[in-house]
């Protein structure tokens, strides 16, 4: 809501140039290069928009690049940033390893680089990472779902929608799910592990087939909220889409906290979702660049604790939930 006002007042500054009235540590506006790996889910779009809005508010021009899942292209893009002499780089790397040469290139040009949402592996290359812990947050979310499942007093058959097997986040969430499962085998038995390749159609078809094989599935976890429309469609066609607390309700859990998830929580269909604090991460990334430029000490890893939103705490957490903000708009 506040964003539009800012955009208007800052409009001339967006052009950058020497006449800008934007304050910055040494008087000139900083050019920040933002390189994303993908913009193909709500979550990344929201993060991207959050960074963009934050930078705009500060009057810093931004260069953008999206590599569409290609680690090599990302390397090219960051090199292009360096060619353009940016003052800082915010990077969503493809994975923990392919980003190392990118970081090295930035180090060599002494440009501060912040990894957004995905950490790099340990190495000599220096960077700051702002991360939500996929593993821990998923574990926490699934643990909540388990406790809900226990309350019903019966054993549940479960399906998990796994993301792209070559995506590090997808793997982290899968592992978090498995970790939460440990010791709870008596409560939940996984009867379907559906690889979705982050594709809605595959998710939908896979879930329909899983429900075909096990019509009594009553527990579904998805590695990303953006697959919820597919899940809802599959559940509806199986006649199993019921509100929380009504008989036949399928326990649903997700990750990300997008607008659809918010809506489903509000309507009482969704049990819980793990939310990453996008606004916190955006703010921290830019602050880290400023601090690095100012020579202040910055920790190598800044954690976004994230939080689980569920039926019990929806009202109090909604304000921090990026999906809720979008849904309200």
């Amino acid at each position, binding site marked *: 809501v506040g964003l539009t006002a800012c955009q208007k007042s800052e409009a001339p500054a967006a052009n950058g140039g020497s006449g800008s009235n934007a304050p910055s540590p040494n008087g000139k506006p900083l050019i920040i290069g933002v390189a994303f790996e993908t913009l193909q889910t709500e979550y990344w779009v929201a993060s991207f928009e959050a960074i963009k809005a934050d930078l705009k508010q500060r009057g810093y021009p931004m260069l953008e690049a999206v590599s569409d899942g290609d680690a090599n292209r990302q390397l090219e893009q960051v090199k292009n940033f360096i060619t353009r002499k940016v003052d800082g780089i915010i990077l969503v790397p493809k994975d923990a390893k392919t980003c190392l040469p990118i970081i090295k290139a930035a180090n060599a040009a002494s440009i501060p680089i912040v990894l957004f949402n995905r950490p790099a592996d340990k190495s000599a290359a220096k960077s700051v990472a702002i991360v939500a812990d996929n593993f821990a947050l998923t574990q926490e979310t699934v643990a909540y779902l388990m406790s809900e499942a226990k309350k019903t007093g019966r054993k549940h058959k479960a399906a998990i929608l796994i993301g792209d097997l070559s995506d590090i986040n997808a793997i982290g969430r899968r592992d978090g799910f498995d970790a939460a499962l440990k010791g709870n085998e008596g409560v939940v038995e996984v009867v379907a*592990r559906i690889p979705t390749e982050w594709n809605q159609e595959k998710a939908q*078809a896979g879930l329909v087939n899983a429900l075909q094989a096990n019509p009594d599935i009553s527990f579904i976890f998805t590695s990303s909220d953006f697959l919820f429309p*597919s899940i809802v469609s599959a559940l509806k066609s199986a006649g199993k889409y019921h509100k929380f607390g009504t008989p036949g309700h399928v326990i649903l859990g997700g990750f990300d906290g997008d607008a659809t998830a918010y809506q489903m929580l509000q309507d009482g269909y969704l049990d819980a979702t793990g939310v990453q604090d996008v606004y916190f991460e955006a703010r921290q990334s830019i602050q880290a660049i400023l601090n690095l430029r100012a020579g202040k000490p910055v920790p190598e890893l800044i954690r976004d604790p994230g939080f689980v939103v569920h039926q019990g705490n929806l009202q109090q957490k909604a304000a921090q939930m990026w999906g809720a903000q979008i849904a309200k708009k």
Partner: protein
Amino acid sequence: MNATPSALLLTALRHASLVLFVTIIAVFGALAPKFLTADNAINVLIQSTPTGIVAVGMTFVLLTAGVDLSVGAIMFLSAAIAGKMLAAGQPLPLALGAMLATGLGFGAINAFFITRLRIAPFIVTLALLFVGRGLALTITQTRAMNLPDRFLQLGSARVAGVPLPLVVLGAVLLVAHVVLMRTPFGRQIYALGNHPANARKAGIRTQRILATVYLISGLCAALGGILSLAQLGAVSPKFGEAYEFKAIAAAVLGGTSLFGGRGAVFPGTLLGAVLIQSIESGLVILNADPYLYPVITAAVIFLAVLTDSTRHTLLARLNRRRIRQELPT
């Protein structure tokens, strides 16, 4: 010469792909009895409708020795437009009409560049793949869009007890089959694919046929998009991605040649589309290790095509014309 073993062998060979298809289904059925239920068969068929319909359009194009790489982009773009229209409160039929019109429009652009400006279909449609996806991303701002429930109801509607998607698929197949096999236009497509220069010499309006073929492909892509949306209920930025490969694979699996002039939509392309979907469905029902999906799918496709090509070689050998009447020895 009537009931010799070779006559029996011939019949078996003629229907080799069907035999293989049944074998694959039987294997899945033996491993998971749930797979062989009527419900599941209908499910698999419904799930293969979008691929099937897009592949029917693709078959027309492939028969002329062309290719249409823009089908996935057409699906996405038309879906994005429909999503926006529905969000703006337009009636559903209008949105559906707009989708089909988009498909036709893109088909017309393809046709214009290919027939008027004589650019290779591969390049034209590749370029339109980029343009189409780019436009769609602009329209959606890379956000997922949830469609109103009316759309999902299309997917579960029934006509005289038959699910609507199956009715549409059946109609498309019937029309396409009759057009290809029983109309002058269809037979001329085969002639054109066999030898374009000779087709012109023979007095066929080759440019007109080529143009029509791309229009058909565009229309089928949009129609496939509608059916897919009717199952998903949402448009995501990945919608329709890699559909060009899926459609070509289904057509080629059904015996259509990339070099033109050979192939058929029924049963060829239909079998191809259903086979791909059956494998996926079977694997989910078996709860197979997600890592094995691509390997098994590839193996089955390989086997299917191997059978088909062996069959062709054997048939050609058995069908060789005879000069002499040999006395039985």
